[in-house]
């Protein structure tokens, strides 16, 4: 590892993308992530790449679709209202099986909402906001260092599975400065893209087509079956999570991203009162780390699971599905850009354990 430098989360995303070999960025300004675009406007020129300021998020995601079809590693970034506009493109990217990386630095909603951090886009990110039976891989970093590492990884996952991989951050992660250590060299999977439209040589291959339309029922079902098979492999191979202090815990807290950092501090506060709190932090939101949640919850010491989110209760539905009645599941959340305090969370834990 190189020496650590102090950088803003949003800029780290941009730098990570360039290091991962991304030379095409398409975006439209929106707070709290526009620094990514500012950084790209300069950095892409240095790196011999392209940054296009699109006329809308709809156009930006369709430029991504085109650039990806043409074989490039490509990035677009936005925040909640802009991500809503990109949903059309997400669905087409899924149907055409194109790799792409999308960053959502989430702000409070619904509607224009506010520019403060939130996690209210969990449903949209993990359950799909576009039409049809499709999935996106969703990664949830919790620090600037992890923003860097997961952004690089997102490009590898996108290429490996020919699908959209999303980084779901929030305004806090995007805006805060933390030390980050860049690697000398990035672990880049250089996968061939024989399917891409690159111009063809009649002697070498047939002409390629990229499409998401299949008029015949059997053809469309074949695409859907292929997608579902791929998703099944991802569920088996790409689930990531972190468990902290879970062994013999009284209460398991489940939280992702920025919110998990607050919960991590609560472990110490609770220990001072003699309450053993463990934390499960999903790093992939899709595929969801069911097994990690179950292994933590299914201990005789555990009285309950508490999910803490910056929303009105979204991931808690996946936690409940995973826990499946083994233990009671509680929820605590704040919205609008407000953060739960350590004390709030501790009080909730105390009310659950009755101490």
């Amino acid at each position: 590892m190189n020496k650590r430098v102090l950088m803003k989360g949003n800029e780290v995303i941009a730098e990570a993308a360039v290091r991962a070999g991304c030379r095409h960025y398409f975006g439209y300004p929106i707070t709290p992530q526009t620094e990514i675009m500012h950084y790209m406007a300069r950095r892409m020129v240095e790196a011999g790449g392209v940054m296009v300021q699109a006329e809308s998020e709809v156009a930006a995601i369709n430029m991504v679709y085109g650039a990806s079809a043409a074989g490039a590693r490509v990035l677009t970034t936005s925040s909640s209202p802009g991500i809503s506009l990109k949903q059309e493109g997400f669905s087409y990217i899924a149907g055409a099986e194109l790799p792409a990386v999308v960053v959502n630095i989430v702000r409070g909603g619904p509607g224009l909402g506010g520019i403060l951090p939130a996690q209210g886009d969990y449903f949209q990110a993990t359950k799909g906001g576009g039409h049809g039976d499709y999935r996106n891989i969703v990664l949830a970093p919790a620090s600037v260092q992890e923003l860097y590492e997961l952004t690089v990884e997102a490009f590898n996952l996108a290429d490996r599975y020919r699908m959209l991989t999303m980084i779901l951050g929030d305004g806090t992660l995007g805006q805060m400065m933390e030390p980050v250590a860049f690697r000398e060299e990035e672990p880049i999977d250089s996968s061939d893209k024989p399917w891409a439209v690159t111009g063809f040589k009649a002697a070498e291959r047939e002409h390629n087509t990229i499409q998401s339309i299949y008029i015949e029922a059997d053809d469309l079902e074949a695409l859907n079956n292929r997608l579902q098979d791929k998703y099944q492999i991802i569920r088996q191979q790409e689930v990531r999570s972190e468990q902290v202090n879970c062994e013999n815990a009284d209460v398991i807290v489940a939280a992702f991203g920025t919110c998990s950092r607050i919960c991590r501090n609560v472990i110490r506060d609770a220990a001072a009162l003699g309450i053993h709190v463990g934390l499960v932090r999903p790093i992939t939101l899709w595929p969801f780390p069911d097994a990690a949640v179950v292994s933590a919850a299914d201990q005789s010491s555990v009285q309950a699971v508490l999910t803490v989110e910056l929303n009105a209760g979204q991931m808690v539905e996946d936690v409940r599905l995973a826990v499946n009645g083994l233990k009671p599941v509680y929820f605590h959340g704040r919205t609008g850009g407000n953060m739960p305090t350590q004390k709030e969370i501790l009080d909730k834990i105390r009310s659950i354990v009755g101490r």
Partner: protein
Amino acid sequence: MMEEKVFTRTPGLTDKPFHYCPGCTHGIIHRLIAETMCEMGILETSIGVSPVGCTYNNYEYFACDMVQAAHGRAPAVATGIKRVHPNHTVFTYQGDGDLAAIGTAEIVHAAARGEKISTFFVNNAIYGMTSGQMAPTTLIGQVTTTSPFGRSADAQGYPINVSEMLATLQGAVYIERVSVTGVKQIRQAKKAIRKAFYVQQAGLGFSMVEILSTCPTNWGQDPVSALQWVDEAMMKQYPLGVFRGSEIEVKPEWK
């Protein structure tokens, strides 16, 4: 006497039969684009973008690499492709619903950016694929399934003259409107297609050829009267001509 083959299918098209209705001029336009790519020797370095509309699957007809786009988004998709392969020839093929309604923002901004792509804009004054609804280009008085009493300016507004509108943009360096209703017009259309590709290859900026086209099926006309309707009714609203770039000379070797 030896038999001489005087006409053959261009290798710019695959051998898949067109699915278009009798008398529909989409087929002629496809052939002109495909022939031009072959004559210019750019078939292998061309990438086309198919629209949403009756020609949604023309990726099966053009023999070059093709990408199918969401409704109206072809110019954005083409932008992405061109920025990855700046030396390739990238074109979009779009109908009037695709380009002038749902995709208005994408075409205006691709043109304004001077994106080095060529757009073939097929104006048949109606939505073909979805069975004859009013398009932004539908003429005043024209009966469609969503203007059953004829388009009225008061209730449904006025037709959009896309070529004239885009010609106001600096990035749009070559804009011409043509038709394919007769031999002379078809020859002119092919020249325009060639010039559009040339302008792109020379890196001059955005180029578009608007092609007036028939939809006998949804106009409720036979093929011959449909061609007459283009000449008589459509051309009043949409006069043929060069709206931008008449001064650009196609080099002799391109002719």
